[in-house]
């Protein structure tokens, strides 16, 4: 691959991957809100 294509690809893909992972990490780490919330699966855990 030529250097401009490689740079373009790596910069874009690493940026997009990092942002995606960051938001997913934040979603998974954020504690759920108090019941009643929007989700039924955690209702029994109250």
């Amino acid at each position, binding site marked *: 691959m030529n250097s401009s294509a490689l740079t*373009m*690809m790596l910069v874009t893909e690493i940026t997009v991957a990092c942002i995606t992972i960051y938001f997913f990490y934040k979603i998974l780490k954020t504690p759920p809100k108090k019941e009643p919330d929007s*989700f039924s699966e955690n209702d029994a855990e109250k």
Partner: protein
Amino acid sequence: MSNNKEAWGSRVGLILAMAGNAVGLGNFLRFPVQAIQNGGGAFIIPYLVCFLLMGIPLLYVEWSMGRFGGKNGHHSTPFILDSMDKRKFWKYIGVFGIFTNLAVAAYYCYLESWTLSWVWHSVTGSFSGQTQAEVASFFGSYISLETLEPIVFWLICLVLNTWILSRGLSGGVEKVAKIGMPLLLIFGAILAFIAVTLKAGEHGAINDGTMGLNFLWTPDFSTIWTPKVWLAAAGQIFFTLSIGMGSIQCYASYVRSKDDIALNAMGAGWMNGFVEIVLGSAIIIPIAVGYLGIDTVVEMTKNGGLGLGFKTLPYLFDQFGGALGIMCGVLWFGLLFFAGITSSLAMGTPCMGFLQDEFGWKREKAAWAFGATVLLLGLPTVLFFNYGVFDEYDYWAGTVSLVVFALFEIILFAWVFGMDKGWKEITTGADMKVPVVFKYIIKFVTPLMLAWVFISSLPGIWSQIKNEAIDKQILAATDPAVIEQLKTQLLYVNISRVGLLLVWLAVAYLVYVAYKKRIKEGRFTS
């Protein structure tokens, strides 16, 4: 009264379902072709700018509109829009949010059924030992309905979609997303690895797979100031995020008002971006260039990525030989199937939400009504595919309607509902700090960009209305049989156009009936 007691099972399930709604066949077939045709690696610059200035703002707007509507028990756009302003006409603008889903599902389910059929043919070795022309001819025979197989797979696909929808949000849609999205990522990663590590001389390849990547990512910065490239980027953002359809509002309407939408919107939106940019660019073009060379691929992609995906890739996978060839076929069409079904399920929920909310229908009845309507509307796209009916649906419902609806909804949200109230809706319960710059982007930049996209599309719309492309073909044709075929195509195209208009009017009539019913029952309207 509404029978709508739907709820999401989990937050991850909601995000995967929303990402599945966005991730479709276009992520793998349309994006790489758009990139090739619009400046290669440089295309990513207008693409990301449009994502930031149009995609993300519209995601915030649609998620918050949905959650706002859900507070008052509205799960489809007619009455979500109605609840945001006193003027009565907004509910008829909201008709687009049901019409688009019905009309797109009508042809999209047929496309989805091809992927199911191609998985089957990959497993049974139908493409084994065939030449490239024979595989392409198989596709031609398939869409010409030379056997009943396309109808059978289409019906299987429709019944499967309807059955999953009848199981509800958490019991059906969310379960499919939780299985389908991880599998899609795994399948995509395996195929991308195989494509990128393809070596010239191995399995009959003439080039390295990286030559395809090089071709796709080499930036041609001279194109960056071309309006055509920006229009292509804006169009791709529309297609890829499923904005302007009404399905995001519907999914978000089942989120309670104190729960987050801002972070959820970013999670789903960027996941779609990851699939499109990282995986979408690394499969079809590297393999195609590896076997066919750049010139042939450029020629083949002039008509879009569909032909490359269905007519050429099965032949190329066969060159891998044996189990690897079969595995790649199953992974590729399996991936497309998961991308397709998670999107088509999202198209069913607004229509079901409307029937449940307004007419008190049970979920199962609403799902089967949706399935039956899609069967009816989709039949012309299956039977008359070769006469351009499929493309006509795609143009009006899958392209023009999205832009029109998005333009109206951003005006409603930012200028009628009011940006201060709108900003409060976006940030209430947010698990992240939404950059305040988006308040101004939503108010000023996004409407202008949408207006620019719409105005730029007007000459094309006018040309489509006048059937200029077909007329030109008729004028250029000399063979009487071809002229006759084109005239028949013109007839079918006009009939399907009138049909789509009638569908819009029928949905508008149902909205009118629902409105009268609400008044009679003393239920909330604006």
